[in-house]
C-alpha cells in the first residue's frame, strides 16, 4: 500500500505550477476589460503598426509607417483629412475614434515570422494595442494573423499577396485589402494574350516558398486556359542572388516567355540577369522573347532600373491613378513627405481607415463587432473604385491594375504605366476554392 506524502512546501509548489498552467491560455488577454482584449478605457486607443523596419524590406516598411502616421494624423483631425474627404462612408469625423484620440506603437517584423509574432505579441500584451496591422510578406501575415486570432484582436494585413492569407490560412479576426496571386493571374492573362498571342511557351522561375507557389499556380492556370503551354517550372532558392545558372537554360527549352514569380531582391536580381543575358533581344519560335513579372512593386522596380522597361505585371494601386481618392491620397502623402506613396503605403493607410470606420459604425472596439461591420462592407473613394470586403474570406474585391515598365520615365518614381484597369468581376472567384475555415471571431478576454 502506498503512502501519500503531503508536505506544505509540496502543496504550495504544485499549486503554483497548476495555477500558472491554468493561467497560460489567457496570457494574451491579461489586460482584457469589458469583455474583449485591450478594450480602451481612457481617452486614447492604441494601434499596433507591425512593419519591417530592418532587413531587406525595410524601405517598404518605412513607407508603410509613413502611411500609418498620416492615417493617425487624419483620424485625429490633423492635416487635410486625406481619404476621409473621398471615402463613401462618412462615419469618421476627424475626432479620433468613438471620441478617443488614436495613438500608436510600432514593432519590427524583420520580415521573419517569429520576430513578427514576437513584436505583435509585445504590442498586444505590453502596449495594449487593440488592432495590429502592417507587414510586407505573406509568411509574416499568416503568422501574425494566427496570433491575433488567438489573442482576440483584429489583424488588418499590410502587403501580402499569397492566396493563402485569405484562403487556406484565413482567420475570422483577419482582413486583407491587398489583392492576391489569383487576381494577378486573372488580370494579367488577357493582356498577355492580347499583346503576345495565345500560342506561347512559358518557362517559370518560382521563388521556393508559399507565395511563389501560389503565384506560379495562378499565372499557369490563367495562361494555360487561354492556350499557353508551360514548358518548365523551376523553383529557385529564396536566398539565391545570382540567377544566371537558372536563366541560361531558358532559351534551350524552346520557351518564348519567361515568367519570374519572384518578389523583392529576388525579382530585382532575376530580372536584371535575364536582361543581361539578352533574352529580350532574342527571337524564339518566330516570336520576340518576352518576360513577365506577375507582382510589381514600384519600390522594387526602382532596384531593377531600366530593366523593367516594357515588362508587364500587376499591382494593387499606383499613384498615377486619376480617381478622386487616389489623387487625394497622393496629394496628402506627397505634400507631407515630398514623394508619391507606394502601393504598400496605400494599402496600409486604407486598412487603418477601414478599421477606424468599422469601429465608428459598430460603436464598439469589440473585435467581433468590428468584424461584423467590415464583413460585406461596400465602399468607394479609397483609390480602387467600388470595393467589397467579402464576408466569406475577409478578402477585398476591387479592380486590379495591369502595368508595364515605362519606356521614358520622367522621374525616379515614374517607373510604371497603367495598361489596363481590370474590372473586379474578372478577378472574382468562389471563396471555397482555396479551402480553409474562417472559424469564429475571438474577442479575447
Amino acid at each position, binding site marked *: 500500500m502506498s503512502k501519500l506524502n503531503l508536505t506544505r512546501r509540496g502543496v504550495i509548489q504544485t499549486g503554483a505550477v497548476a495555477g500558472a498552467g491554468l493561467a497560460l491560455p489567457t496570457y494574451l488577454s491579461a489586460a482584457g476589460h469589458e469583455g474583449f482584449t485591450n478594450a480602451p478605457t481612457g481617452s486614447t486607443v492604441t494601434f499596433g503598426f507591425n512593419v519591417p523596419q530592418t532587413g531587406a524590406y525595410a524601405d517598404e516598411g518605412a513607407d508603410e509607417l509613413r502611411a500609418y502616421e498620416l492615417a493617425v494624423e487624419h483620424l485625429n483631425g490633423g492635416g487635410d483629412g486625406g481619404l476621409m474627404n473621398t471615402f463613401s462612408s462618412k462615419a469618421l469625423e476627424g475626432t479620433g475614434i468613438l471620441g478617443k484620440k488614436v495613438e500608436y506603437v510600432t514593432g519590427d517584423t524583420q520580415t521573419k515570422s517569429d520576430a513578427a509574432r514576437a513584436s505583435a505579441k509585445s504590442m498586444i500584451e505590453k502596449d495594449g494595442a487593440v488592432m495590429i496591422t502592417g507587414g510586407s510578406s505573406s509568411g509574416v501575415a499568416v503568422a501574425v494573423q494566427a496570433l491575433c486570432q488567438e489573442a482576440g484582436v483584429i489583424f488588418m494585413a499590410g502587403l501580402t499577396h499569397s492566396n493563402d492569407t485569405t484562403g487556406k490560412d484565413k482567420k475570422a479576426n483577419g482582413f486583407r485589402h491587398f489583392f492576391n496571386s489569383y487576381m494577378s493571374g486573372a488580370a494579367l492573362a488577357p493582356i498577355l494574350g492580347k499583346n503576345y498571342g495565345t500560342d506561347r511557351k512559358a518557362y517559370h522561375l518560382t521563388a521556393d516558398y508559399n507565395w511563389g507557389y501560389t503565384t506560379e499556380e495562378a499565372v499557369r492556370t490563367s495562361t494555360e486556359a487561354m492556350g499557353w503551354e508551360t514548358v518548365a517550372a523551376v523553383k529557385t532558392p529564396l536566398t539565391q542572388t*545570382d540567377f*544566371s*545558372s537558372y536563366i541560361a*537554360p531558358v532559351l534551350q527549352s524552346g520557351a518564348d516567355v519567361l515568367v519570374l514569380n519572384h518578389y523583392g531582391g529576388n525579382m530585382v536580381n532575376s530580372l*536584371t540577369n535575364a536582361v543581361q543575358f*539578352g533574352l529580350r533581344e*532574342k527571337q524564339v519560335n518566330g516570336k520576340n522573347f518576352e518576360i513577365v513579372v506577375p507582382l510589381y512593386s514600384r519600390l522594387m522596380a526602382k532596384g531593377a532600373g531600366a530593366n523593367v522597361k516594357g515588362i508587364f505585371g500587376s499591382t494593387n494601386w499606383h499613384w*498615377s491613378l486619376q480617381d478622386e481618392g487616389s489623387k487625394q491620397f497622393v496629394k496628402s502623402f506627397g505634400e507631407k513627405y515630398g514623394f508619391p506613396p507606394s502601393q504598400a503605403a496605400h494599402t496600409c493607410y486604407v486598412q487603418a481607415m477601414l478599421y477606424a470606420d468599422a469601429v465608428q459604425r459598430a460603436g464598439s472596439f469589440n473585435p467581433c463587432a468590428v468584424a461584423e461591420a467590415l464583413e460585406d462592407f461596400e465602399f468607394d473613394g479609397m483609390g480602387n473604385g467600388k470595393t467589397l470586403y467579402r464576408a466569406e474570406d475577409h478578402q477585398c474585391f476591387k479592380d486590379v491594375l495591369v502595368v508595364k515598365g515605362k519606356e521614358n520615365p520622367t522621374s525616379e518614381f515614374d517607373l510604371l504605366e497603367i495598361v489596363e484597369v481590370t474590372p473586379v468581376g474578372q478577378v472574382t472567384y468562389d471563396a471555397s476554392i482555396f479551402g480553409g475555415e474562417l472559424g469564429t471571431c475571438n474577442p479575447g478576454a
Partner: protein
Amino acid sequence: MDALILQILNGLDKGSAYALIALGLTLIFGTLGVVNFAHGALFMIGAFCAVTLNRILTLSHTVIDETRTDFLGKPLQVDVPYVYDIFGESAGNAIIDWSVPLAILFAIPVMIAVGVIMERGLIKHFYKRPHADQILVTFGLAIVLQEIIKYFYGANPIPTPAPEAFKGSFDFGTMIGFDPNIIIYPYWRLVYFCFAVVIIGAVFAFLQFTTFGMVVRAGMADRETVGLLGINIDRRFTIMFGLAAAVAGLAGVMYVPINPPNYHMGMDFLVLSFVVVVVGGMGSLPGAVLAGFLLGILESFASMREVIDFIPGINQVIIYLVAIIILLTRPRGLMGRKGVMED
C-alpha cells in the same frame, strides 16, 4: 554538351567572385592568422564605392521644366548633372556611363585605407586571442558596417549598370559550331571573369616576384624567424590587410552591374567564401582560387533542371556537400598546408 558548356561559363563568373573574396580571406589568414568575418562587408563596401562614384558623377542642380508636371501637378524639376555643365552633355553622359570601371580608381585607395584602419584600429587587438573571439568581433564589425551602409543608402538594391558598350550578350555557341541562341553569355560577365584573372595574376606576381612579396611569404611561413632578422613584419602584414581589402573591394566594384548592390550582399557571399577557403585549404592561395572556380562551376551544374529533377534540393546544398566530402577525404582541403589551423 551545350548545357555543360553553358554551366561551365556561368560557373566561371560566379567562381570569379568566390575566388577573389577567398583570396583576400586567405591572405589575411595566412599573414595575420585572423579569421576575418568582416571580409564580405569589404566586398560590399567596394560595391558601394561604385555606387558612390556614380552618385558623385550625377550630382545635379535642378531646372524647372514648365512644359511638364510632377506627381503633384507642379512644374517638373529636372535634374541636370554638373558634369554636363563642365564637359557638355555628350561627354558628361559618357563619363557617367563609364562610372563602374572608373570606380576601380576610386575604390583602390578607399579600400586600402578602410583595410588599414580596420586592422590598426580593431583587429590587431585580437591577434593573440582565440579564433572564436576573432570571429565574434569581425562578425560584429560586418553587421555594423552593413547597417552604416543601409543608413546612408537604404535597404533596396541600387541599379548601377555596366557601360553601354558591354550591355547585352554574345552568342558563344555559334563561335564553336552550335546553333544560334544555344549558348549565350553576357559581355559584362566575360569582363568580370577576365578582370578576376588579371587581379589574381597580379596578386600572385606581387607575392612571387617582388622583395616585399618574398618577405611576406617568408613571414607567412615563419613569422618569428623573419622578425628575428630585424624585418618589421607587422607593418608588411598591415599593408597586406589593406591589399586584401582592396582585392575584395575591386571584386565588389565590378560585381554591381551583375546584380544591383544592397547592404546585405557581403553576407550573401561570406559563408560561401569561407567554405571555399576551407575546401581550398586554410592558408593556401592557389587552393582558394582553385576551390572558388570549382565550387562556382559545381553550383551552376547543380542548378540545372535535369539535376534538380533527379536530386531535388541539390542546388541548395551542393557546396556544403562537396565541402563535407573534401574534408572527409582530404582534411587539409585541396591544397592545404600542414600545420595551418592544426594543433
